[in-house]
């Protein structure tokens, strides 16, 4: 089924962005762009989210936080790195306190370039990520099926 593509809920996290990309992410919610058209909701809670939207690069302060939030998003989930800093570290790449883009830490599915990324391209990136989300869902289902047949012990306990 395609419910997932029709109702992707975002979690937006500002890693160490200059707030340029953040403003643009929020602009997507405004009447002009209105992402709710696509069923997209900006939740404030990783446990409700499907799409993890990160702006800004990884630094020492937010390394743990990004990982923690990523782990708390239930499967299937995708990560969208918005802006050049989130993609590669951008102009801060060589700073002593920046490790680089988000992919240094967690797997990123879609990169949205730009400084700041334009709302159109952010929306485009998120819509792109939905294809990947759907793929992941199918994969998850197959894995669950395999597990049932193989009856591996321990369930999903972490």
């Amino acid at each position, binding site marked *: *089924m395609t*419910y*997932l593509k*029709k*109702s*992707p809920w975002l979690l937006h996290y500002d890693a160490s962005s200059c707030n340029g990309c953040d403003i643009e992410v929020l602009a997507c*919610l405004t*009447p002009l762009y*209105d992402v*709710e*058209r*696509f*069923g997209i*909701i*900006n*939740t*404030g*809670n990783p*446990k*409700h989210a*499907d799409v993890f939207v990160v702006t800004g690069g990884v630094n020492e302060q937010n390394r743990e936080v990004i990982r923690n939030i990523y782990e*708390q998003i*239930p*499967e*299937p989930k995708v990560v969208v790195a918005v802006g050049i800093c989130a993609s590669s570290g951008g102009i801060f790449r060589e700073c002593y306190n920046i490790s680089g883009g988000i992919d240094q830490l967690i797997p990123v599915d879609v990169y949205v370039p730009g400084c700041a990324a334009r709302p159109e391209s952010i929306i485009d990136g998120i819509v792109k990520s939905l294809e990947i989300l759907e793929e992941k*869902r199918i994969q*998850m289902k197959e894995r669950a099926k395999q597990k049932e047949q193989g009856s591996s012990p321990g369930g999903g306990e972490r």
Partner: protein
Amino acid sequence: MISLTNAILFLLLAPIIGGLVSGIDRKLTARMQGRVGPPIFQPFYDVGKLLEKENLVVTSSQNFYILSYIVFIVVSGALFFAGGDLLLVIFAFTLAHIFLVLGAYASNSPYSFVGAERELIQIIAYEPMIILSAVGMYMVTKSFFVNEIAASELPLILYLPGVFIGFLMVFTIKLRKSPFDLSTSHHAHQELVKGVTTEFTGPNLARIEIAHWYENVFLLGFVYLFFAFNPVIAIVAIIVAYLLEILIDNTFSRVKWQLTLKSAWIVAGMMGLVNLGVLYYLAGVLI
């Protein structure tokens, strides 16, 4: 006395009606804000998606509380539409809500804990007025049974205008609408993350949403009772009442819990009790 057909109809139709109402609500809200808004069927997509997602919990007992929550919401709603005792229906709804609150407590998470406390505040804010509404209906129709109230020829709204205003007030709280969306809401108020629902993911969240649809249909049924003497007027009244709620939702900002509690109680006291007092006095004089 109890109509099983109605109960089954409620079980089957309520999620459809509730989901549609919620979809229309979101569409209208978007239009009021100058947006295009999601498709009407968006709530169904949301719930469909949530059911497909992984179930992450902090503790397994959360599952139990949420299952109990939805089961008792459905049971009490079914009891209402089957024509059962209104007070029993109200108490059963309280029971269901306590399960939701307990589910939030069980996770021992700060956000859901605060949400749970606020949900309790909401319960004590709306409960007296709901009970007084039932009492008001009894005073006019001499029956607590929903089927008898619904079959009554008397225009309840003319006897109970104050009670109805009080009920509309708590209706806002029950629908989780601004300005009283203390414990959780559909808006992007983020200072408490998502209140009671913070620690629920995927299927559990879907259950909470479906339970909310069932509950909304029950509440609309309650509005119907005030106008039951004429079904056409009743349906118009339901639509107007709900539109009013959407308007209130979009024109007010969230208030503090103190104001929620105070205003709900004051309105219950002023509107509800004074109305009932007048009825009581008249009944004493006339009979």
